[in-house]
């Protein structure tokens, strides 16, 4: 094909320009340390990298949330375990009250120690967390969890039920605190009956709960909060010295009957009733309305019984039974809360470990797509440099030949 003068220059110039462009490109990749200078270099990888960046950043956030969550749980666990320890000490002291050899002064000494323990527990219940809000107040972190209500003399919970959750993975948000309402407040007071009322031929009656758990079962199944009258029971003793236990004037099914012997115990669902007198007679009693008593109020009750009431004998035994049953109930609740915390701590550890692995593989994938392989890039750079110098030399050779040089 015939080559014109202009063609010769144009073709060689184009080669030089192309070689320069390629060299520029190779050096830019090396300098910016990426294979993808602009999205057009690899459109699908660019889109993929956008998605990966979001995942990596989210995962980092979840990991830092996990750290915060673990700290919160550890703090709560420490507070609860201290409270639990103090409760154990209080229980031991309460048991000592039953020592027959103690006088009122001895019991007063014990009650002073119980007061100290109450203050300690009160302090721990109002513990503040790392952010400066109250740990056990639920969502009301500026309100102190427990405080003494001067009007009633009872320690009342002023927080709410809320649990703040932290997101530690795309689908798992774990609670970082427990509300005082669940852990401290929700402790049942000892289930009892009201004082028995005798009428007719009965002279006196003494009720005693011998098997508290059996009585608790009976109570739970039979207490009726909609119809209060259903909580009234009667022991009806007829003239033939047979007794029947009735509920709200109606017989139970199956009917509970038996022979009545004055002074001997009638056993009914863990309740031991000792009635003196002769029939026809009636003893009325009711199931006491259910109450809750937190540990602070429980301790207050026993302290008041010793110091204000100065009780002894049967009354002291009654107060002690109340206190022991309620301290046990409170301890069970705290144990439950602590095992819940333990479960959550395990879960956080597992999820954090899993997230770490995911994060590594995400970062590796991103590096694969985006980052430059140094060996490859430097080779490319050297290649383009060589190509450019070769083309430049060719230009010189090809364009310097002309017939006019050889004409005379």
């Amino acid at each position, binding site marked *: 094909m015939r080559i014109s003068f202009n*063609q010769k220059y144009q073709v060689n110039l184009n080669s030089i320009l192309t070689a320069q462009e390629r060299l520029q490109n190779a050096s830019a990749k090396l300098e910016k340390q990426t294979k993808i200078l602009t999205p057009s270099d690899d*459109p699908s990888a660019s889109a993929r990298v956008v998605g990966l960046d979001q995942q990596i950043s989210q995962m980092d956030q979840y990991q830092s949330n996990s750290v915060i969550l673990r700290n919160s749980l550890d703090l709560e666990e420490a507070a609860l375990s201290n409270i639990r320890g103090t409760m154990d000490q209080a229980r031991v002291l309460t048991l000592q009250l039953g020592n027959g050899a103690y006088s009122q002064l001895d019991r007063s000494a014990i009650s002073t120690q119980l007061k100290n323990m109450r203050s300690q527990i009160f302090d721990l219940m109002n513990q503040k967390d790392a952010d400066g809000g109250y740990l056990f107040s639920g969502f009301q972190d500026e309100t102190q969890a427990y405080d003494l209500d001067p009007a009633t003399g009872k320690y009342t919970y002023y927080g709410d039920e809320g649990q703040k959750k932290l997101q530690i993975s795309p689908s798992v948000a774990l609670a970082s605190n427990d509300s005082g309402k669940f852990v401290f407040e929700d402790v049942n007071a000892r289930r009892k009956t009201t004082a028995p009322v005798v009428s007719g031929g009965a002279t006196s009656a003494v009720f005693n709960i011998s098997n508290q758990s059996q009585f608790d079962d009976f109570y739970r199944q039979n207490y009726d909060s909609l119809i209060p009258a259903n909580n009234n029971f009667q022991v009806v003793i007829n003239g033939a010295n047979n007794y029947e236990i009735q509920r709200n004037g109606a017989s139970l099914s199956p009917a509970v009957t038996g022979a009545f012997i004055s002074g001997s115990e009638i056993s009914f669902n863990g309740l031991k009733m000792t009635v003196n007198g002769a029939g026809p007679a009636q003893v009325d009693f009711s199931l006491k309305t259910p109450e809750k008593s937190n540990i602070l109020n429980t301790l207050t009750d026993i302290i008041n019984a010793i110091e204000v009431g100065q009780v002894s004998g049967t009354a002291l035994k009654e107060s002690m039974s109340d206190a022991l049953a309620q301290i046990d109930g409170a301890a069970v609740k705290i144990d439950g809360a602590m095992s819940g915390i333990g479960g959550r701590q395990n879960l956080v550890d597992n999820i954090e470990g899993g997230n770490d692995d995911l994060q590594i593989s995400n970062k590796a994938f991103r590096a694969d797509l985006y980052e430059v392989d140094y060996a490859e890039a430097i080779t490319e750079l050297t290649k383009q440099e060589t190509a450019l110098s070769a083309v430049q030399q060719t230009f010189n050779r090809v364009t310097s030949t002309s017939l006019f040089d050889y004409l005379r």
Partner: protein
Amino acid sequence: MADNLLTIGTSGVLASNGLLSTTSNNISNLNTKGYTRQNTEYDSSVLGLGVGRGTTDRMVNDFAMRQLRRDTSSVSYNKQFLAEANRVDTLFSNTANSISTGITDLFKQVQTANNDPSNTSSRQLVMGSSQTLINKFNTLSSLVLEQRTFVSQQLDTFVVETNNIVNTIASLNKEIMAYGIGQSTPAPLDLLDKRDEALRELSEMIEIQTLDAVNGEKLVFLNSGQALVMEHGRFNMLAASGNPDPERKVLEMQLDYNSNILQDVESAGLGGKIGGLLEFRSQMLEPTQNKLGQLAIALGDAMNTQNQLGMDGNGQLGKPIYTMGTFGAYPMRDNAGAGRITAIVESGKGSSVPPNEFLMTFTAPNQFKMEVLDNEGKVISGSAITQTVTGYPMTFNTNNVTGGFLYGYEVTLDNTAGAFGNGDQFILKPLSISAQTLTLVNDRPEDLALASPVRGEFAINNLGNGRFGDFKVTNTNPATSAFTAPGGITGAPLSVTYIGGNQFEIRNSSSTLLGTTAAMTGGSYTNVLASAGLANYGFDFTLTGVPKTGDTFSVAYNSGGFKDNRNGLIMANLQSADLLRKNAVSVATADNKMSLNEGYGNMIGFIGEKTSAIKLATESSKSLLQQSEAWYESISGVNLDEEAANLIRFQQSYAAAAKIISASQTIFDTLLAAAR
């Protein structure tokens, strides 16, 4: 005989002279643009009397020229498109501007605020990163908008250049025609060269077809068949004007006999620089801008909606944190009426907004139609929504549109400036400015609503172990729910009592019975309020566990609950929620939604893929052009070596012919000497 020799010698000398001058002409015009190699040919004279007439011709192949022009157009189209596309491509490769990192940062700060909701500084960080994200949206959008303005300005410049070239061709046509085609007049070679060069320049601007007229004129047409240069030196001109948006110029043709008549010119088949510019705008720039605008609207609306479902740092119901402004529709230039249409994004419907523009048509007496336009500006079939106007000003939204769907917008028709005319059309393109109009309402950290507005409590003396499960808040609008402004619930605290048989009674604070639920399956009582016939309260809840008859629970406004982060957790999960609509028209079962990050990734992929395709097209069209140039140059290009050889040749023939003259002189002298 002697005078024969003289004649022959003279003709030979003259012929060699002519040949030499042609060769010298070729050598001198080596660097002249558009010069084609000239060749002189001689006929021998009759009766053996030397050299006859000589004709100088241009060495040119019409097919090679046409191919060269066509490939020039193609390369110019691709180069122009690529130059513009590279700017957009580079814009989105810069991670500092990246919307994706901005969105990720925002949600990271929301998560941090969730970890400690009552801390003002972490809330402040959320507002701060909101502002940064908005700035990124604004910057990117204004850079893209700048490019659009640049395109319009470029179009103006190109149109002026093109018109100049068309003018030149027309006047050259006239001059060439004046020369005529005859034996006696030599063809005006340099005029022909000039005209061909002008045609080549024109093909850079626009792709053209040429037709040879009988009288030597060349007629020029666009690919669509519209005539640019016609016979007898008449020509049409191109014009650029915006209809309906004055900022968005399109190409039109002014007819020569009446410059007020404007014909539309299709931009799709135009080719050349102008075609590249216009196709870049409609295939890449505007879709990118629409996708960016759609991201802004989806994010703003989703955050607003979620914020309004929560309780803010002041204990009040959340308010919107972003505003997106009102968008006006552009009326077409030839609308008869003076009615105006405006639109806003309907609160809560941001995820229905498609990445398209809309065409609104008003048909008398009261029909209003809204259709979706695709990238080329054509209506997508099946997208029309027609409504009847019942009075002015008329507002359409999902509450009063048949089918309850208006692509996420609330449209208002207003005739205070004048009534609507029959057939009036408007173009609504909110996405072209929505990324710029997105602003924060204010940056007070307390406005972030991280807490939930309701909370429930169980009565401490309950016998059973019923507990509250999750609360779902769906609507806090005081007009349509049980919430009251600024922060409260009507009849709160509500009491929920278990009455046995898996049923609950709901009472308000004055113990009035509000409703009783149906018997629900035990163990987990879901949607208690809905079951009690109170579904329009705006929230609902679940109760778990086993309650005993008579157990009560209370539901109240979450006053003082500043450590609550339930709404904040949902807000943080918006990062992965499906907030963007993919297509304007699709079937009900299609997967038509995607998350914000997926949408951004799609946009990057779109830009990258389009630019990469144009890069390839540029390379391939460049190599095609090189081929065409090689063919053209091989026919019409001057080769110095060839001309050098010719110089020697014609010098020698000149010397030889001159010798004939001196030979004839010698013969004549000899004759004269003999006759003395």
